[in-house]
């Protein structure tokens, strides 16, 4: 009696020809994350800020956001088409959509269509594709676009419209923000008031940088008080579409951390450094700068710290590196805000630190397992 297997002749084996088996290196499994999904999660995290922007600034903000999205995706597609890259795959990774959204959030509401157009071309072409596309850009593309616009079109880029609620009678300090008396403003801002095209106002940082010290009085008392802090926090202040509403930005930040998309150290240390530095300076020279609360809630600090400085491509890889990077951003922002020509310095500081990322990556590498101290290879 043979012990041979009777399963020898097996029919119905649908094995492919051996030469059709895929050969590849190990590992043969992967996690479900891919670039497109990461970018989608970023977009999801941006939605609260986008919604807040539309709520506070209305139809003009929505228009800017749509323009910016369309132009960014269009610029990417055009470049890929001209450069002979796969167009749909590049669009498919959603990175252009993220750039478009972030660029819109960094523009004042109510800018004409050519502002996002120029910004999109600057961001996508000059900020990203010229270096070889996603992953190879040394600078945050959005900030390249924004800073380019800020320098090229300073008037348009610093014309702010008031947020919803600022025209109401309860809003404190109308006069300070460049608007007329409450009663007059209400008539101007209503849709029926056709005689005016645009109502503008100032940003808190702008007001602060131009306020003049009156003898014996706190120089920033009009913009820097607890009543105003409340208004700033919920987003009732002049500014870019996405930078005013702190709760939406914080929610986005929490989402990003939950999705494991950003290093939590970056926003924390960035905002923390600005807070600590301004606190110190304010304590010793209150006439020089407003309180740290004012600094944290106004301008693009939260937007920058949560969404711009944490951009994976242009921030350091190691945890220590991220801390150094964020502290650097914070210092430069504070310096520009207090001593610089521009009232706001978040964009410049992040761009500057972007340039240092390769160095930071080099200096602050993780110590590999088993190395007790840095040793030189022989």
């Amino acid at each position, binding site marked *: 009696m043979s012990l041979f297997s009777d399963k020898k002749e097996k029919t119905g084996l649908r094995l492919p020809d051996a*030469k*059709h088996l*895929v*050969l*590849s*290196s190990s590992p043969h499994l992967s996690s479900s994350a891919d670039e497109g999904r990461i970018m989608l999660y970023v977009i999801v995290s941006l939605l609260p800020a986008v919604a807040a922007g539309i709520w506070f600034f209305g139809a003009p903000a929505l228009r800017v956001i749509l323009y910016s999205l369309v132009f960014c995706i269009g610029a990417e597609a055009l470049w890929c088409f001209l450069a002979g890259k796969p167009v749909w795959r590049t669009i498919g990774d959603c990175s252009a959509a993220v750039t478009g959204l972030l660029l819109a959030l960094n523009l004042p509401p109510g800018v004409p269509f050519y502002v996002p157009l120029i910004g999109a071309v600057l961001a996508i072409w000059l900020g990203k594709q010229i270096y070889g596309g996603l992953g190879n850009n040394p600078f945050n593309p959005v900030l390249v676009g924004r800073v380019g616009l800020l320098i090229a079109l300073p008037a348009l880029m610093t014309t702010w419209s008031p947020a919803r609620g600022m025209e109401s009678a309860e809003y404190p300090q109308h006069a300070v923000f460049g608007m007329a008396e409450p009663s007059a403003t209400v008539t101007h801002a209503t849709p029926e008031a056709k005689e005016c095209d645009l109502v503008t106002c100032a940003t808190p940082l702008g007001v602060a940088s131009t306020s003049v010290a009156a003898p014996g009085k706190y120089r920033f008392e009009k913009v820097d008080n607890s009543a105003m802090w409340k208004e700033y926090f919920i987003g009732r202040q002049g500014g870019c579409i996405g930078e005013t509403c702190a709760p939406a930005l914080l929610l986005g930040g929490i989402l990003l951390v939950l999705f494991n998309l950003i290093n939590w150290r970056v926003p924390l240390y960035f905002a923390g450094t600005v807070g600590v530095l301004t606190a110190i300076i304010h304590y010793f020279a209150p006439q020089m700068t407003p309180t740290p609360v004012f600094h944290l809630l106004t301008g693009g600090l939260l937007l920058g710290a949560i969404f711009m400085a944490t951009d994976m491509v242009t921030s350091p890889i190691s945890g220590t590196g991220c801390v150094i990077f964020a502290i650097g951003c914070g210092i430069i922002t504070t310096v520009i805000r207090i001593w610089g020509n521009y009232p706001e310095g978040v964009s410049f500081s992040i761009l500057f630190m972007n340039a240092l990322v390769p160095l930071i990556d080099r200096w602050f590498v993780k110590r590999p397992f088993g190395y007790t101290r840095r040793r030189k290879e022989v």
Partner: protein
Amino acid sequence: MSGLIVSALVMGVLALVLGTAIGIFVKFFKVKSDPRVELVLELLPGANCGGCGCAGCADFAKAVASGKLQPNRCPVSSREQVNAIAFALGVDPGEGFARRAVVCCSGDKYQTQMRKFYNGAIDCAAANMIGGGPKGCRYGCIGMGNCAHACPFGAIEVINSLAVVHQELCVGCGKCVTACPRGVIKLVPANSSAHVYCNSPEKGATKRSLCHGGCIGCGKCERAYPDQFTKTGFLASVNYEAEKLPGAEEIEAIKCPTGALASEAGHYESEKNAGKGENK
């Protein structure tokens, strides 16, 4: 006004101090250079290919000026350029022959069986480690272009997953030879024009099952021109030391059954046109 004066003063003092410092450094830390090295460097092509075995043209110029190497070691320079260098230095240009690279494989994606689906890094050496890459033959060109990347002269083109050397651009620096993980690329005398485009020592039948372009070792070429061809095992090779190297005429006469033995022009033409018939 006072600001103007102060800044002018500061700049002036700075300029003075730095200028003096530079002067001192130039005086005390001067590096003596041989003018002949400069001369040779000017006459060299400046491709920095490393084909001479030195680390770039400057290094070679130093070696030539000090007499360690002969000027003809530069593979890029023409005979006239070598003579010019030799004349300038008053040395012997050296005897020798120019070399050129040949990718000894005709296994493009139409000839060889693309036996394995390969998924991974587009790099010959990396693919070679994963079961030998996408082609069936273990000796042939992998076709991912490590040689093309290594070539400083852009002389290698990958056509249909097969590297082909453009002989008019190749200077024989040998960079591709070291870049190839399979050792398919050989340096041959520049005046040769026909080669055996196969590198596999396997049995004829095995080769035939893997690749239609490989040499099956029939010996036709060796029988016809015993001086110019030798067959070792299942692989024929051109005897590059022969007095008369085989040319188009011999190729025509032999009619290699697989096309492994071909003239350079014929090989390039056939690769260029490969697969075009199938599309019709």
